[in-house]
Each structure stands twice: as structure tokens, then as C-alpha cells.
């Protein structure tokens, strides 16, 4: 059967200031076909799709829908051509039900008829195999359910071309499998589907064709059945990359940080951390896996002295004296003054770890500016540290006096990690240290973490990519709903095992949450 081309892009170019986001990109997607757009972060995947969905307007190039040239100047135009995009960040009203969100903004000349709409929503869910309760409120939903609402929303409006931006970034492996099944059903019914991703195994298991972008440029399109991971990586990066993370055997492990039964409750009385107990040992990388927002951030911040702890204690064991110190209720400054060398690479690099508008030298100073009795700043030492890091970690920057916000994501992270490692820590915590980084920078970071491990640092690594966690970490602790669901050995675990632990807790959590919500309603 000859498949008709649903969407075709020819030589699309888009620039932002001096940054070329897309340059002469062309692609085609046919009806009843899934196309992956593969590329590293910052390679222009999302920009390209934003042009298709009318958020940006291309500087040059042509778009064709069903063979006709079209101009998409606004999301309304995209809608007219039956293009629907599911963004990475959901745009839903929390206090509305699924159905209310789906019909929100709908202009129906025949009048507003909710029962009819709900009927239609049920038809759609049945047709493609979704699981969704139209009357459930958004704030009661898991991330995966919210995503389902977003997808049904565009289907409800009759979209024939669906674009999904990194749909699996927030899903567990099991939820991903479900999503893929639904997408395959849609393909069977003749929809054209584009998914934006940077995960290779997803590309291979799901799509028919892959279009690869590299630094905003079109790197080619290949048939999925005729390619493999190595070839795709090479297309993405532009050169051969060895995708192996070295993992040395841990040596001379001693207990360094003992987190003993800590709990944190927020203002609304919800437990952010629930009786968390674990031990981080020197010379080991302890991975923390879990669905985003399961308490990873709170846990690291609690250790770093940024999160109020309601119960439990955090014991730091000094490597030289073996003295035990309780870090609970200590501010970051106090922790440093106690001589505890705790380095923390937070998730929010420019909003927490660094100051975007300050230059590299001033950012180096963040940790050390208080040193000395003088009321004036000493910029000499931070300047040489900055230059040292720029050289050693190959930071691409015009100079050490460039504001860090002007650097690319990978270079920002090198500056931050470099600074944190420079304090020769005994405990190093890193939250999503490779998020948004290209493959080469990611490997630089993995190597740095491994180096620290060999030096006898207790490394705590919060990650989202299970493949990486399994390759890099000695132990992997799974956290869900603020609780530790289990700890597995990185050397002999599987993604499925970790995935099960991830879902186990989140399921229990949902049941509990749903129950308490009902209680509130009945009052």
C-alpha cells in the first residue's frame, strides 16, 4: 500500500540572534507511520516542531501538508491543519477534571454539551487503548495520566499529525511500554506520529524512520529496521563514540554518611521524605533512581542543610578522625565550618548552583568568598581556579570573565562540577548532572564522578536514565513517594527490576493519596 505523505518540511531554517537553531532541515512523515526525531539536547528538535505547531515562525523554508504548501503562523493554523503537539511540560488546569481540560477552549457552535463530549472521550480511549477516567481531577493524577490527557486533548480536536516532545522523559519503563502500545494503535489507524527523543533504544523499538539532527542541521534520515545504535550515535554526534562507562571495583570502603530515618513534612503536611535510611560509603557511587519529584531533591537538600528535617539524623563520619557529627539542623555555612567537605551539584544549575549573570571567576568565589578577615573580596585565587577548570575540563568560553549564562549547558555544568570537586570533597552529591548535556559532556561528567570515587569520595548520584545508572553505580537505591523502595546492586540488576520498585511505591502512594482526597470530599 502506498502511504501518503502527511507532513513534509523542506529546508527549514530558524535563527535566534546569532544562534542557528535549525538550518535547512527537511523531513517527511507519512500517514500510518511513526517518525523519530533524534538529536542531542540543543540540536534543534523542539524548535523544529514548535515551528510545525505554529509557536515559532521559520526564517526560511517550506511546509507541506498532504502535498499542499501551507503557512503555519500560529497554533490556530496548526490546528486547522490537524497538527497536535504534546509538549514536554504539560499545560493543564490542576483543579479541572480530565474532561474539562480536554474540552477547554473548544468553540462549539451547537452549544456546550458535556455528556456528549465525555462520550466522545470514552470512544477515543477505547479505540486506542488508553486508560483514563474523564472525571478525575488533574491534581489527583500521576504524570503518566496527565500525559494521557494531553494526548487525548489533541485527538479530541481531530489531530491527524501528532507530535510528542520527549514523551518518555517523565515515565517509568512500564508506563513507557504502555505509551508505546497506544502509539502503535494510533499508527494502525492511520495517524502520522512524530516523537522527539534522545533515547536510542526508544527510537529502535518504536519508530519506522529516524530523522537525525546534529547541532541544528539535518544529518539524515534512516529506516529504523536498517540501522543500529552505533550508527545513530555517530549520526548524532558526528563521530564515533564509545558508549561504555568504566566501572572500577570499589576499594577501601568505609561508612561516610549515615542517613538515619529522616522525615520531612512540608507546610501542607505532606511527607516529602518518609523514614529514609541509607549509608553512603567512601569509594562507592550510590545511585538514586525514581520518578521525577519522588523526593530526590528534598533528600539531597536535607543532607546539604537546605531542607528542614522533622525527624531522624544525618551522621557524617570524618575520614581522618572517625569522629561522628550530626549534620541535622545545620546551615550550609555551619556544615562547611565544621570541616565537613560536602560538595553538592544541584539539579537547578543556574538557579541554585551558580549565578547566571556573574562571570566564571565570581561563580568560583561562591564557595570561598568568605575566606580571610578582609572586608574585601580576594579575586586572585578564584581566578586561577577558574582558569584551571577552563583548561582541565575543556570549558568552551571566550574568557573567565564571561557570564556563565552565556555558556552552553554542558559548559555550565563543567564549571559547576569543577568548582564543587575543587574543594576536594569527601562526599559528592550530584542531582541529574548530565540532564541536557550532549553525549561527550555527559561522559566527561561520568569520568569526573568515577575519578572522585577512586579518590575515596562517597558519591551520591541522582539520575533519570536507568541505563546509565546501571552502568555507572555500585549500588542503586530506588525512591518513590519520599520512601526508599529498595536498594539493588548495580552490577546485577535490570531495568525491569528497578522499574518495578519505582512503580510499586508510586502506586501505593497514589492509592493512599486518592483515599485521603476522598475523605476530604466527604467532610
Amino acid at each position: 500500500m502506498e502511504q501518503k505523505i502527511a507532513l513534509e518540511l523542506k529546508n527549514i531554517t530558524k535563527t535566534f540572534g546569532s544562534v542557528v537553531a535549525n538550518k535547512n532541515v527537511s523531513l517527511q512523515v507519512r500517514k500510518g507511520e511513526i517518525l523519530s526525531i533524534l538529536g542531542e539536547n540543543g540540536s534543534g528538535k523542539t524548535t523544529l516542531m514548535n515551528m510545525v505547531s505554529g509557536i515559532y515562525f521559520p526564517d526560511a523554508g517550506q511546509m507541506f501538508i498532504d502535498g499542499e504548501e501551507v503557512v503555519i503562523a500560529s497554533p490556530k493554523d496548526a490546528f486547522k491543519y490537524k497538527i497536535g503537539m504534546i509538549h514536554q511540560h504539560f499545560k493543564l488546569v490542576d483543579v479541572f477534571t480530565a474532561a474539562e481540560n480536554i474540552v477547554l477552549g473548544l468553540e462549539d457552535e451547537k452549544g456546550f454539551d458535556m455528556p456528549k463530549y465525555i462520550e466522545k472521550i470514552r470512544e477515543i480511549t477505547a479505540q486506542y487503548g488508553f486508560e483514563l477516567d474523564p472525571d478525575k481531577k488533574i491534581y489527583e493524577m500521576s504524570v503518566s495520566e496527565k500525559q494521557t490527557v494531553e494526548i487525548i486533548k489533541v485527538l479530541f480536536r481531530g489531530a491527524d499529525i501528532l507530535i510528542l516532545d520527549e514523551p518518555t522523559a517523565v515515565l517509568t519503563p512500564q508506563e513507557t511500554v504502555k505509551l508505546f502500545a497506544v502509539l502503535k494503535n494510533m499508527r494502525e489507524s492511520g495517524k502520522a506520529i512524530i516523537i522527539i527523543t534522545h533515547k536510542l533504544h526508544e527510537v529502535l523499538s518504536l519508530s519506522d524512520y529516524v530523522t537525525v539532527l546534529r547541532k541544528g542541521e539535518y544529518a539524515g534520515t534512516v529506516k529504523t529496521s536498517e540501522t543500529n545504535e552505533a550508527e545513530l550515535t555517530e549520526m548524532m554526534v558526528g563521530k564515533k563514540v564509545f558508549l561504555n562507562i568504566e566501572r572500577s571495583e570499589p576499594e577501601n570502603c568505609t561508612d561516610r554518611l549515615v542517613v538515619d530515618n529522616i522525615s520531612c513534612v512540608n507546610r501542607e503536611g505532606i511527607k516529602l521524605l518518609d523514614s529514609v535510611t541509607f549509608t553512603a560509603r567512601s569509594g562507592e557511587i550510590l545511585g538514586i533512581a525514581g520518578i521525577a519529584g519522588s523526593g530526590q531533591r528534598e533528600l539531597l537538600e536535607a543532607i546539604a542543610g537546605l531542607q528542614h528535617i522533622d525527624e531522624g539524623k544525618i551522621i557524617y563520619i570524618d575520614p581522618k578522625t572517625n569522629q561522628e557529627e550530626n549534620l541535622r539542623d545545620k546551615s550550609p555555612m555551619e556544615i562547611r565550618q565544621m570541616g565537613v567537605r560536602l560538595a553538592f551539584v544541584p539539579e537547578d544549575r543556574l538557579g541554585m548552583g551558580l549565578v547566571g549573570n556573574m562571570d566564571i571567576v565570581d561563580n568560583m568565589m561562591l564557595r570561598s568568598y568568605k575566606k580571610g578577615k578582609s572586608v574585601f573580596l580576594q579575586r586572585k585565587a578564584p581566578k586561577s581556579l577558574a582558569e584551571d577548570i577552563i583548561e582541565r575540563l575543556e570549558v568552551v568560553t571566550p574568557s573567565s570573565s564571561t557570564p556563565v549564562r552565556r555558556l552552553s549547558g554542558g559548559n555550565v555544568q563543567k564549571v559547576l562540577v569543577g568548582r564543587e570537586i575543587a574543594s576536594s570533597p569527601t562526599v559528592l552529591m550530584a542531582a541529574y548532572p548530565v540532564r541536557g548535556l550532549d553525549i561527550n559532556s555527559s561522559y566527561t561528567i561520568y569520568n569526573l564522578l568515577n575519578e572522585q570515587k577512586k579518590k575515596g569520595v562517597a558519591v551520591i548520584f541522582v539520575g533519570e536514565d536507568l541505563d546509565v545508572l546501571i552502568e555507572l553505580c555500585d549500588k542503586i537505591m530506588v525512591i518513590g513517594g519520599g520512601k526508599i523502595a529498595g536498594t539493588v546492586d548495580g552490577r546485577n540488576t535490570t531495568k525491569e527490576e528497578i522499574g518495578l520498585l519505582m512503580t510499586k511505591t508510586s502506586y501505593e502512594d497514589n492509592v493512599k493519596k486518592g483515599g485521603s482526597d476522598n475523605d476530604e470530599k466527604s467532610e
Partner: protein
Amino acid sequence: MKKVNNSLHTSHFSSPFHIVKRDDIVWWKAWMFRVISVILALIVCGVITISLTGINPVKMYLTMIEGAVGTTRLVWNLFQNTAILLCVSLAVTPAFKMRFWNIGAEGQVLIGGLATATCMIFLGGTMPTPLLILVMLVLSILAGAVWGLVPAYFKTRFNSNETLFTLMMNYIAIQIVAYFTLEWSVPKGSGTPRTLEMGQLPALFGQKYLINIIIVVIITVIMYIYLKYSKQGYEISVVGESENTAKYIGISVKKVMLRTMAISGAICGIAGFLLVAGTDHSLKSDTAGGRGFTAIMVSWLGKFNPLFMILTSFLIVFLQKGASKISEVYRLNPSFSDIITGIIIFFIIGSEFFINYKLKSNKKETEAERC
């Protein structure tokens, strides 16, 4: 191929250009934009002047310059006014750098002035003048600092909105000062403010404003060094850029906030002291004269850099003086001088837009590629 694309997009796109953020701009280009904007402003003002009043704009501008720097007295007056405005602007700058929107400078100045006037009235004659002046200075600093600390305390304690709080504190200060002005007026209750004889700042080299100017120059230098090279100045920048980073590093945000607002209020207090003891020798509820608000503009236009702020405060005072002369000479409604000042400031602020952004034509694709 490319030509086809060109015609395609121009024919469909409604607006002829779109806005693009600049990466960086060389300093001379930025200044060129600023100069061009002033020239454009003068042209637009000229057109408006002719069409509304029929006055020759060139003559009008000459009158303006004459009004600002026409005589030696006027020049001193200009410098004195610039100094006071700069002083208030320097006061609000550390708070603004910390993203604490202190729009209560007006009240902080007045309270400082009130403290000074109180000393002059009640302590005048009881101690030697240099000591009296010192007491006046210290008390005005304290009064201003307290007026600045109150909103900061409530912000750190209850997370109240500092913009509203500092604004409200202005009205309280104005009413208190209005009460005492009436109380102290001669004859009592007449509303004519009393001339404060004791504790006036001395004239240096025969120039009565020189001491004001010297004090403000010193404050400017100190503030520049404080913000750029001191540890406290660094903390202010970190808190202003990102409170999360400040917490992450272990800077006590509350402490920095209180300390900085105390400094901000204290310098406003000094401005009040200079106004009452060095300039007006009297206290009225409009002694601050809106400088507390104008200072916000000076500070922003000067990009929170004390050295740039010398320029911006001079420019604004120059415009004000010159424009009021126009109204006087040509017997125009005083609003007309406000219109002229407004247009010029509008263009100057507008130039900042072109320094940060550029317009890109949708027609010329080649240009898009070049930059």
C-alpha cells in the same frame, strides 16, 4: 530556491519585522544608540514645540541650556541638585541590586531631614556647631536606617510585600513631617516653615553647596567600592540574582536583607540631612521633592553602577532645570516642560530596548544569516 522562499514568506507574513534578542553589544555601539536617541528626542520635541506653540525649537533649546547653566549661581545650583539626587539614587541602589524594591526613599529622606531639623531646633546653641552637625548627621542616619529597616523586618519575618510597604511608609513620613512643619512654623500654625539658623553646614571656599557635593562624591566612591569589591556587596549581588543560590551557599538572606535596607535607609537619611542642613535650612513635607521616585529611574538608567549614575542624575536634573526655564521664559503652562522632559527620558529609556534587542526584517533573509 532561496528566492522562492523569500517571496513566499514576505507575502504571507503580516508584520514586516520581528524582534530578536541581541547576544552582546560593543560598548561604543551602545553609546551610539544612546546619543542617537537623545538627538531623535530633541528633534521630536522640536516638532512638537513648533506645532503646539510656534516657538523656534533651536531658541528653545538655547533657553534650556541657559536655564540650566546660564550663570555661576545656576551651575552651582545644578551641581547641588545633581548631588542630592545622586545621593538618594545611591541609597536605593544596593536595595535594588538585591531585588528589594525600595520605593520608600522619599519617606526615608524626609525622616532623616526631620531628625536633622529636630536637632537644629532643640540642640542648636547647646553645643559647639561642629558637634551639633555631627549629632545631626548621626541621628539622621539612624532615623533613615530605621525607616528602611521596618519594611525589611516585615519582609523577612512575614514575607510582606516590600513595594507596598515602603510606599506606605512614605505617606506616614510625609504626614509626620507635615505635622511638625505646622507645629514649628513662624508664626506658629501659619504654615510658613521656620528658617533653621543653628547647625547649618558651613560654606567651603565661599561656596555654600560645596560641602554637599563633596560628601556625595565620597559616598559615590564608597558605594562603588562597596558594591564591586566588598564581600557584603558580593552577597547583595548573589541574593539579588538568586535567593536559592544564596541559600545553597549558606548566605543568610534575612541578614543581608536587613543590613542592606539599613544601609539604603541610612544614606537616604544623609540626603535628608544635606537637604535640611546644607541646602534648604528649613523642613517642609515636600523637602524631598519627589527625588525618592526620580532616584529609582536614575538608578535603573545607570544600571546600578554608581559611576554611570553620576551621568544619569546630572542628565535628569539638567533637563528639569532647563525645562522649567522654558516654561518661565515663554510663559508656557508648566506641564509643557514636563512634556519635553518626558519625551527625552522616554527616548533614552527606549534606546535600552534597541541595545538589548534588534529588529530583524522578515524580507532580508541574507541579513538573518549574516548575524
